[in-house]
């Protein structure tokens, strides 16, 4: 104890303090991150399918951003309420409507662009929710073990095998008007279980690592150990699961909208398919049937491919030698 009170007199320490203040704080940490990321990128780059997925994703992101433009050009390009005054019925591609119009003369292209926005919104937020819940549950369950683990994992077991789509269907009927946000929450609440399982098993192995035990011996609380020591070490895995989760979330949203249980106030790709199906234009309007389906399939494919490539980055075991 005595020793430490002398810091005002310790010349070396004072020198070090001065030097540290001159340098920019913890700069080394960010530098380190950059190197790690570059290393990961190098591995990612080697996966051609992953790159393809990334390119697709960028295209869709561009679509989502462009979606704000058409309604600015003319109100008739508003995806939900805009109607071309000269077109009474669905029509093939023209100069004014590059992809044609739907059954009441709305522009299919602007609907398609907005669909990208909705897909991103739903996919990413829902997956984020699912992963956030799943990671927390997995961490808590894996670390605390015993009864908490048993209860949480039994719940996860049940949630995992529930036919999610059908449950959401029931929920949407119950809620009456399923807004996109409700949907996001529900998907989040139904999709965390598999993440929780993986994170739990990872936590179980991390829990036995000496550095965690060292932290226990330091007197660290359970919360601190879970979120400071184990948490950061499972995050890459969570991130990986998020990319896969986005795929599921987008598919669920689209399927729901297709069955007619989507948010009636939004234009999504599933909704577009539902319209083309329900209004009887399926066999007559390929320009209307094809784009939304292709978009849904490709965006899910892109997230899936990226997820696979990330998997190789995170699990070195999978890397091709």
């Amino acid at each position, binding site marked *: 104890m005595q020793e430490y009170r002398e810091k005002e007199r310790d010349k070396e320490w004072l020198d070090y303090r001065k030097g540290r203040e001159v340098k920019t704080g913890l700069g080394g940490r960010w530098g380190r991150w950059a190197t790690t990321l570059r290393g990961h990128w190098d591995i990612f780059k080697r996966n051609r399918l992953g790159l393809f997925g990334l390119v697709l994703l960028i295209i869709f992101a561009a679509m989502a951003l462009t979606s704000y433009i058409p309604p600015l050009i003319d109100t008739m390009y508003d995806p939900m309420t805009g109607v071309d005054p000269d077109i009474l019925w669905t029509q093939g591609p023209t100069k004014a409507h590059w992809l044609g119009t739907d059954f009441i003369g709305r522009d299919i292209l602007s609907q398609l662009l907005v669909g990208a926005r909705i897909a991103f919104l739903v996919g990413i937020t829902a997956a984020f929710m699912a992963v956030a819940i799943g990671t927390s549950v997995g961490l808590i369950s894996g670390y605390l073990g015993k009864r908490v683990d048993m209860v949480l994992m039994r719940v996860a077991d049940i949630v995992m*095998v*529930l036919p999610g789509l*059908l*449950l959401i269907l*029931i929920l949407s009927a119950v809620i009456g008007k399923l807004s996109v946000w409700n949907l996001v929450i529900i998907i989040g609440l139904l999709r965390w279980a598999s993440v929780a399982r993986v994170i739990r098993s990872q936590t179980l192995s991390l829990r036995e690592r000496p550095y965690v035990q060292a932290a226990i011996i330091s007197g660290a609380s359970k919360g601190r150990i879970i979120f400071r020591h184990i948490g950061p070490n499972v995050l890459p895995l969570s991130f990986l699961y998020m990319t896969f989760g986005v795929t599921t979330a987008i598919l669920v949203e689209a*399927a729901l909208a297709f*069955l007619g249980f989507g948010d009636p106030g939004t234009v999504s790709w599933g909704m577009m398919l539902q319209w083309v199906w329900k209004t009887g234009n*399926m066999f007559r309007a390929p320009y209307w049937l094809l784009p939304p389906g292709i978009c849904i*399939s490709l965006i*899910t494919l892109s997230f899936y491919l990226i997820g696979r490539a990330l998997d190789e980055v995170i699990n070195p075991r999978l890397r091709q030698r």
Partner: protein
Amino acid sequence: MHLGKFILIRATQIVVSFFIILTLLFVLFRVAPGDPASMVIDPQMTPEDVEVTRALFGLDKPLYQQYLICLKNFVKGEFGSSFYYGKPVIEIIGEKLPNTILLFTTSIILSALAGISWGKVIAWRRGSLLDSSVTVIGLVSHTLFLPWIALLMVWVFAYWMNLFPLSGMITPELWLNPETGITMKVLDVLHHMVLPLSVLFTIHFGGFMLIMRSSMMETLKEDYIVTARAKGLTERQIRERHAAKNAALPVVTTLGLSLAFSINGGAITETIFSWPGIGRELVFAVSNNDYPLAQIAFLLIAALVLVANLVVDVLYAYLDPRIKY
């Protein structure tokens, strides 16, 4: 842990979760806006008629009483009557479930077998053109949007080429004809099954194949494969007897889990192809606010999945002695 005890524990767990789901569904449906009686917009329905109808369904009682009645009946094995059809739910399900099972087991078995055999081959020849092309096909299959591919198939094979019927399960004229033999009837059902089956196959094949491929590649790294080579076994023997057999294990586990997902997709497929199955019935019941039917149909599906998972777990533990519970 002893096997019997394990199954017992899991069975209790299934029963408990069952009742939790039942309660949840009950609560959900009762807070749902619009009861089945008020859903009827018919100028002939007087308010008194609506009240009578509600009493008919037991909706006039307080919520907790309804719940108790529901529980009591459930334990007694009475699953109530459908609001919409007016007949016992169990009868409706009894009519529809076999159709669903027919479609599902066939599609899952076919896609799992195809997935295993292709995954095996391409993992063996990893890096080849065959590998990359089949992998891409598998990836696309895994991420395809099911309703869309179903609509496309209808469009191409039923509308353009006129090869298969659009919907339903049988051709009424054929079945009404007393001269039609049993073979013809079976073939007729098969003929109707081809399109929905292909859709489900397309969707599930990719998943199984990708799992088999990665699992096979893991297995090929194991020492016993090297040993087998050293023993001088033929490549075919190694692939079939040593690698594929062990690599197929993870596919078995996913089989159980994928059941839940395939039932989701099944509901859509059944809706699009008007396949008179339980998934379509559930979608229908949900849009009609037919609580008892939706409730029991969902519970039944959930139970099927839970039990299937239990079976898979036990099977898996049996096949792989390293697994502990």
